[in-house]
């Protein structure tokens, strides 16, 4: 069973929302409705998140991604559609039941950290447990563990305003982890941080995820970030999900010009893998006896592949873990990919191959 499923979700602000939903479902444009004073923030959003996945929703500001996120834990009530969490329809729950779900099963990390300035780090991290009524001793132990997990051991008695932005967000993360919720909602959680610290936090999130295996819905406006951490990515525009797929899907097969314009800035060498650029089934080149070449795996990032190719006197061979040859990567192809031509070329080649 999927952990989280969004089913034809709509969120419309303003008057006569039901009629607006009907018209949107019939294909009406968001701008038409806006002229009438109704704002459609989310239109017909649907996706499935499996346990242990990091699901990223990417979009520019105003695309409805934050509204979508707030419907997932019931902070906003959908105008239409359902949110299924472990098979339970959250939209059908009473406020009390919904609060119980939020307290124990779903936690949230905010863009500007949202730490309580009148509580110290430990009290902040223990907040969710305090709401649940966990006894002080137990909640402090669990909060301390969560803080340790986020690399904040020894900072328990400090105050939020004494910490740097990155550390504050670690407290925010610890607060979310302390309740041991299954689902983590992260609302542009790293956007307010400096680029270096942001990258650091992304790495740490990935490391934590390997240990804890949570289900995470992550909102961002930064496609690089989306591709770095997302198992699956939904690209939103004007309230609708325009493309849903893996990072490679989006990079290699952008659904429309809008997505294509986005991926121009993406560092493709850190997203694309050897399997995406190799000529599948090609025979490896003859190798001299004392050749300096190495083979690579199919999941090797193009960036790393370049380093290998630079030392090899011939195209690099791609093998799986058993040593079976999957294909080769000609150096020209590698250069083409780096030059940004790749997506179309590969597309064309694949089309020809299929035909």
């Amino acid at each position: 069973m999927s952990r989280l499923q969004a089913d034809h979700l709509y969120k419309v602000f303003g008057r006569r929302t039901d009629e607006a939903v009907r018209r949107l479902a019939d294909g009406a444009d968001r701008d038409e409705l806006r002229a009438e004073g109704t704002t459609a923030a989310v239109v017909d959003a649907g996706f499935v998140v499996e346990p242990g996945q990091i699901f990223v929703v990417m979009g520019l500001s105003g695309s409805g991604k934050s509204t979508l996120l707030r419907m997932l834990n019931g902070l906003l009530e959908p105008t239409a559609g359902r949110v299924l969490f472990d098979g339970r329809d959250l939209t059908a729950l009473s406020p009390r039941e919904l609060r119980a779900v939020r307290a124990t099963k779903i936690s949230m990390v905010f863009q500007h950290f949202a730490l309580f300035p009148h509580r110290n780090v430990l009290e902040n991290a223990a907040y969710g447990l305090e709401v649940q009524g966990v006894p002080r001793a137990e909640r402090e132990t669990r909060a301390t563990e969560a803080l340790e997990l986020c690399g904040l051991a020894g900072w328990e008695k400090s105050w939020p305003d004494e910490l740097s932005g990155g550390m504050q967000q670690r407290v925010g993360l610890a607060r979310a982890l302390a309740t041991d919720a299954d689902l983590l909602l992260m609302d542009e959680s790293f956007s307010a941080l400096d680029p270096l610290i942001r990258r650091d936090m992304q790495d740490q999130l990935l490391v934590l995820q390997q240990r804890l295996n949570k289900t995470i819905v992550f909102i961002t406006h930064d496609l690089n970030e989306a591709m770095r951490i997302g198992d699956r990515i939904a690209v939103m525009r004007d309230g609708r999900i325009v493309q849903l797929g893996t990072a490679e899907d989006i990079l290699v097969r952008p659904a429309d010009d809008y997505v294509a314009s986005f991926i121009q800035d993406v560092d493709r060498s850190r997203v694309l893998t050897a399997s995406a650029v190799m000529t599948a089934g090609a025979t490896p080149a003859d190798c001299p006896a004392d050749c300096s070449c190495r083979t690579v795996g199919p999941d090797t990032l193009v960036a790393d592949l370049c380093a290998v190719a630079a030392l090899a006197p011939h195209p690099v061979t791609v093998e799986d873990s058993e040593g079976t040859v999957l294909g080769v990567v000609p150096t020209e192809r590698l250069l083409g990919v780096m030059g940004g031509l790749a997506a179309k070329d590969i597309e064309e080649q694949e089309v020809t191959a299929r035909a």
Partner: protein
Amino acid sequence: MPRLPLGEWVDSSVDWLQAQFSWLFDAVSTGVTGLYDGIDAVLSAPQPLLFAGILAVVAWWLRGLAAGVLAFAGFALVDSVQLWDEAMATLSLVLVATLVTLVIAVPLGIWAARSKTVSAVLRPVLDFMQTMPAMVYLIPGIIFFGVGVVPGIIATIVFALPPGVRMTELGIRQVDGELVEAAEAFGTTPRDTLLRVQLPLALPTIMAGVNQVIMLGLSMVVIAGMVGGGGLGGAVYRAIGNVDIGLGFEAGVSIVVLAMYLDRMTGALGRQVSPLGRRAAAKARAASVKRPGAKLWAHRPQPVTALVGVVVLALVAGGTGFLGGSGGSTSTAASGKNSGHGKKISIGYIPWDEGIASTYLWKELLERRGYEVDTKQLEAGALYTGLAGGQLDFQTDAWLPVTHEQYWEKYKNKLEDLGSWYGPTSLELAVPSYVKGVDSLDDLKGKAGQFKGRIVGIEPSAGMMGILKDKVLKEYGLEGEYKVVDGSTPGMLAELKRAYERKEPVVVTLWSPHWAYSAHDLKKLTDPKGTWGKGDGVHTLARKGFAADNPEVGAWLKNFELTEKQLTDLEAVIQETGKGKEQQAVRVWLDRNPGLAEKLAPQ
């Protein structure tokens, strides 16, 4: 444009409200009075200096040693100018008003912060309450609640409520929306969101509101003094009425001491009780460079130490208060026959000299006859309203039929006239006797240059000002030559005093009897054409049914009479003895006039 009878509508709705809801107003009045009496009893029980010590320890705890020392010095000053009881009465009034205001304002503010509709409805109502001059609330306040502290407290509450509501609403609204969302995202109930997140974060702003409520309450005490609120406000009001600069200053400074203390303490309390404030204070301490001297003065005891200090002082205070109370009860030796049997009688008075003199004369006489007498100083309108409402039994200073005509016309059905005890009074223009050649109104003609063309008048609403402008000036051909300066009675008296001391020529509106004639050497300008009209008599007025309820006192008051010599003598003795010792002065005067007490209140 047709005249909208807005005032009449309000007038009749006040009457209607009083008729329909008198039980409610009585209940409110009883509740507020009880609260006030309780707090006042606690505050004025300890020895003044001990209580000043308690307040100083609190200041030491909240703000440091310097604040504690200053607080003690300030309250010791209040005690030394003999305004301690008044200050405690005022403090009680402010505390009761603040307490009630907060009980109403904070929930209203929370409600307004949560609902846009409530906020939108409240805003104009609060504006109305705050901008309506507070004096306007007093008269309906007296009609509903009777004279005394209650209308003062109610007017203070109405006046101080808006900032309390506004600051609470503002404080909650300015809490970062993301924090509230964070609380909700972790499943916090709305009630807990309010208690754990919104209120703690709004607390500094709410405390600023509390501070404003207290300051507005203190600014109202003088106005409350006009309706019998007593305390420092009463002292200020009496000082204004008698141009007593010394008393005015002492009472004013005492109010300032209270205001400073309450302001600084609520400010510090705001920092102490809110975690956010404590955090900010800790940061400031860490940042400030430590000087050894400053450290001593900024030293603050641990809360426990402070608490122990306060408790010890309070116990001592309680002990001495108990002993002092049992040992020092001054028994007013009731000489002669006790015919009053402790019956309670309440006298109201305007702080005019003949009013004070006759009121304290009767207080002394009635107490000698075994009555229990309570006196209340009031503004004229409040006095008549209180008398008509039956909260007062009688007053001795009604100038009838001219000066107080409007009050008499309004309330004559609810009052009974026990006759005139002094008269006739007269209205006149007066000049200092060093001004030569001016003895009658006729002599003023052509001398405008000498008096700078001015006649120093009193309140433009006063009856004598109308007679002066419309009749006197016309008849003597002084129109155009003299300008009548509108002002106030204290203003006129101050101007007279100033000119008198510099021996400058001045002409003022005055009336007899008036203490100014004994204080300064003045000439009444004769009125050969009789334009001022016949004078008033000073009447004793009682509430309807008083004489029937108290036939003995009624008979005494009906026969009450003083000559001009007796009255001015009594006034002079009171003036000499000093403020706050009126009754003592009356005793001295009665001793000098043997047999008079028997004559005024025969057994």
